[in-house]
């Protein structure tokens, strides 16, 4: 076909109509999504005056650094706990029979579908000083005073793990399903103890799942707003809430957009790096 030589790939005349039906969604994405994101980026290097002054705050401002550290610490802890718990669940799911598997999958998917706002609220109610968790612990005589479980980092961590665990379980489970467990059986028959077979055969095979789940949970945790804001009670500022405070309360657009840009670029860079190892689109359900 001669027309292909001077037209970009995909622009074969036969496909004209199909590009046309792509257009409405693409136009919306460009003008109502990409343009606003670009505006955030531009604002971060022009407000209040052109230059990289806002980005210097990453290195000089103690409150910015404190927020970044809090964010990284909570995201890392959340990732660690979610991977640990998620691994056990995915492992048990892999071993369960199919009816048990269905029930387990239902338990994993159920919280996925209940709004994060509702779930955070439920945790506030459960963990507050007069809530059922503290009431129960006191009734059993395990504690005398209500434990401070909410409006602090403990509360944020519990809420974040609850939100992130399904992502970890689903990614790990997808990986484990592809593993041929006869390899483990082979190791056992060759004299490996149950733990050795797990440690030296099964665990290494789940490495891609661990990397995928870990990166996904970490990335999603970085940008979280609702759960840390509600369960932290304003005392545990993570980056997303810090950005909102800069815009709503102190009107520091330069600082707010700089942190937003930093957050966005970190997330996209991590996703890009992950896409070198895994099919990222599958993580998002494709």
């Amino acid at each position: 076909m001669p027309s292909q030589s001077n037209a970009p790939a995909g622009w074969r005349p036969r496909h004209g109509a199909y590009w046309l039906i792509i257009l409405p969604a693409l136009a919306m994405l460009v003008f109502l999504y990409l343009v606003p994101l670009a505006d955030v980026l531009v604002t971060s290097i022009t407000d209040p005056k052109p230059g990289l002054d806002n980005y210097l705050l990453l290195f000089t401002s103690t409150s910015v650094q404190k927020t970044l550290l809090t964010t990284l610490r909570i995201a890392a802890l959340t990732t660690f706990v979610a991977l640990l718990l998620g691994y056990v669940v995915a492992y048990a799911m892999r071993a369960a029979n199919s009816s048990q598997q269905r029930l387990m999958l239902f338990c994993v998917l159920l919280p996925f579908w209940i709004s994060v706002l509702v779930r955070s609220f439920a945790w506030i109610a459960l963990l507050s000083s007069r809530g059922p968790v503290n009431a129960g612990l006191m009734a059993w005589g395990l504690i005398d005073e209500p434990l401070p479980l909410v409006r602090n980092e403990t509360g944020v961590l519990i809420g974040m793990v609850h939100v992130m665990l399904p992502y970890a379980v689903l990614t790990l489970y997808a990986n484990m399903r592809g593993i041929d467990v006869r390899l483990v059986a082979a190791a056992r028959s060759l004299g490996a103890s149950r733990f050795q077979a797990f440690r030296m055969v099964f665990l290494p095979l789940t490495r891609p799942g661990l990397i995928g789940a870990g990166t996904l949970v970490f990335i999603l945790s970085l940008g979280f707003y609702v759960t840390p804001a509600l369960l932290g009670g304003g005392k545990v500022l993570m980056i997303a809430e810090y950005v909102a405070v800069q815009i709503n309360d102190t009107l520091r657009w330069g600082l707010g957009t700089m942190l937003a840009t930093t957050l966005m670029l970190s997330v996209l860079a991590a996703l890009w790096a992950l896409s070198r190892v895994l099919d990222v689109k599958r993580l998002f359900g494709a």
Partner: protein
Amino acid sequence: MNRHHATGIVTAFAWMVLGFLALPAFAVVPISFTDTRYLAMPDEHWSLQHWRAFLSSREWHDSIWQSLWIACVSTLGAVVAGTLCAIGCWRVSSRWSERVRTAMILPMAVPTIVYALGIYRLYVDLDLVGSAIGIVFAHTVTGLPYVVLTVSASLANIDPRLEQAARGLGASVGQTLRWVIVPNVVPGILSGAIFAFIHSWDELIVVIFIGGRAFFTLPRRMWDGINDNLDPVIAVVATAMILFTLLVLSAELALRARRPRS
């Protein structure tokens, strides 16, 4: 038999974690019937006082309607544009269309707070803060990825020669879409619609920024309620939202059961 063995301790621990996942949200159900004036389990007896307060509240009613129609309209927009886009990308199937499809997933990957700042700035310039059309467009564009993904997944099971046959027999692009392609991806479209609907129905952060004084959707009113005072009425709203989500979810599961497994 390609199964392995998990010891009893591992399975028991897994079920504990699953309980931790599935159960906590339901704590709001008994709390919504509390007889106290603060957030707690019912003390002496179960009471309907907070349900009555909710049902007679003008504000909560307005919020429900706002949330409902915004979710319906933006779902419609996301479904139409997203389905067309997925079909176009599937049929063109070049390096560029593949890039378009990847770009469509961006709203799922970029943290919402970043987008909220951007769209707020754009809407300040366009004088769309606190406007219905502004919120609908923002929810439509962020709902697109769900539809593009689910419809693309449906399309992956269709033989592309079906489209070629229709065109070869003289059908226009419009006729091919209407009579050949769309009927084959209905389950994908419906799943996408449900995801897009729940997305808009639950969306909080963008609405906080661009809702202005006029738009207090259900999540936004809940958010304000939780931040201002922990009124047990919020537990009632949360219970109602869980019921509603379970309803929508069972519709999705029913659809999935009808869809042939590939």
